[in-house]
């Protein structure tokens, strides 16, 4: 425990109310509560518990190392706070401001307490400044981490949602593809389709690409792979929903899908029914 930080800790305890008042005022002016995303009372509570944790941290050993044991509670507090703010839609700077705005009241505190010795005050300010900077960086990192977690989770959810295999009739499956086909998605699509072919003993799979925005050579290759794999399992594939522009682009690119393709899912379905020996007819009088 160094003298400087222990002294700071003592001052913090003595002047807690003033610091808190000035800090929360600064925060509210600077939009540290995210323009009303959290309530004033909540912000006050967060400030109070952070200051208390900081005081304990400063009083502990190795007080300028925020990785140390003494700062464990400060780190936990900041992680939780950053995480909740990331979810509440705070911007990174709004989140980091929380710690950084504490500088102003603490500098003034140091200056008033050490007015007689400017050199010592400068040193003390420096120690304080680097400590708060580290805490600020830590906050931003925690914020970033939780944002990345959100992105990863959403990617997984999209991947799960994006590859449904639908049973249209006995032995006829449809695979409506939506979005860009990359190699990872093709793998998932292929696995799902093949499993569905086994499970439902399907003869025909209709791959509908109405929702695929662009078809370049790579996407075409992925499609052909899927079709080849389905054929190896004994199922025929029909491609449907190729939009006019896409058909033109594909021809211009020289991409050739050497499979049966139909303009719409309905056409493909009727072909599939015919191939499985069924037909759709209109009733003479509607039921």
């Amino acid at each position, binding site marked *: 425990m160094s003298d400087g930080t222990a002294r700071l800790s003592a001052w913090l305890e003595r002047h807690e109310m003033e610091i808190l008042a000035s800090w929360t005022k600064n925060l509210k002016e600077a939009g540290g509560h995210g323009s009303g995303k959290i309530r004033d009372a909540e912000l006050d509570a967060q400030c109070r518990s952070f200051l208390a944790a900081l005081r304990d941290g400063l009083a502990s050993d190795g007080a300028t190392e925020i990785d140390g044991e003494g700062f464990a509670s400060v780190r936990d507090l900041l992680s939780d706070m950053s995480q909740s703010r990331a979810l509440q839609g705070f911007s990174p700077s709004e989140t980091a401001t929380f710690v950084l705005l504490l500088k102003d009241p603490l500098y003034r505190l140091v200056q008033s307490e050490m007015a007689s010795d400017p050199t010592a005050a400068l040193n003390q300010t420096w120690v304080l400044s680097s400590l708060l900077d580290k805490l600020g960086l830590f906050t931003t990192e925690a914020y970033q981490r939780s944002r990345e977690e959100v992105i990863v989770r959403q990617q997984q959810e999209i991947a799960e949602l994006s590859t449904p295999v639908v049973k249209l009739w006995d032995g006829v499956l449809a695979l409506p593809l939506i979005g860009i086909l990359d190699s990872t998605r093709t793998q998932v699509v292929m696995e799902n389709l093949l499993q569905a072919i086994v499970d439902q003993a399907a003869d025909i799979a209709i791959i509908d690409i109405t929702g695929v925005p662009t078809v370049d050579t790579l996407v075409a290759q992925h499609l052909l*792979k899927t079709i*080849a794999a389905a054929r190896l399992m*004994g199922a025929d594939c029909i491609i449907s929903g190729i939009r006019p522009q896409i058909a033109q682009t594909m021809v211009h690119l020289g991409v050739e899908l050497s499979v049966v393709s139909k303009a719409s899912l309905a056409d493909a379905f009727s072909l599939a029914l015919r191939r499985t020996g069924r037909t759709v007819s209109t009733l003479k009088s509607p039921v």
Partner: protein
Amino acid sequence: MDRIPILKLGRALLVTIQVDMHDRLATALEEDLSAKIVASGAQGVVIDISGLDLVDSFMGRMLDNIAAVSRMLDAETVVVGMRPAVAITLVELGLELSGVKTALNVERGMALIQSRLLQTRLEAVEIGDDGL
């Protein structure tokens, strides 16, 4: 050495692969099968690989070879019961077995061969042959 049994069912031959294929077994199968096609005059070969969960490029090529040889001896090859993982592996290896017909299971493979037999018989009737 082990041999893979080849069963005769009507005018088709049925090969069920239930053990892990090693290369010598595969070569032996190719020889046995071509001999059996000629001896029995079979018009179709159904190869059931539902027991196979590992496949390499050699296996893929062997299936292609068997199909080519059978076609030369006037028999159609149908590979049935391929597992999804095996299908994906073959496609990734670039082996699409374009010379081989496929079906989901033995039943459908047999139906495929029956329909082919029926068709050749009909054609034979059309040109005034006696259908043999």
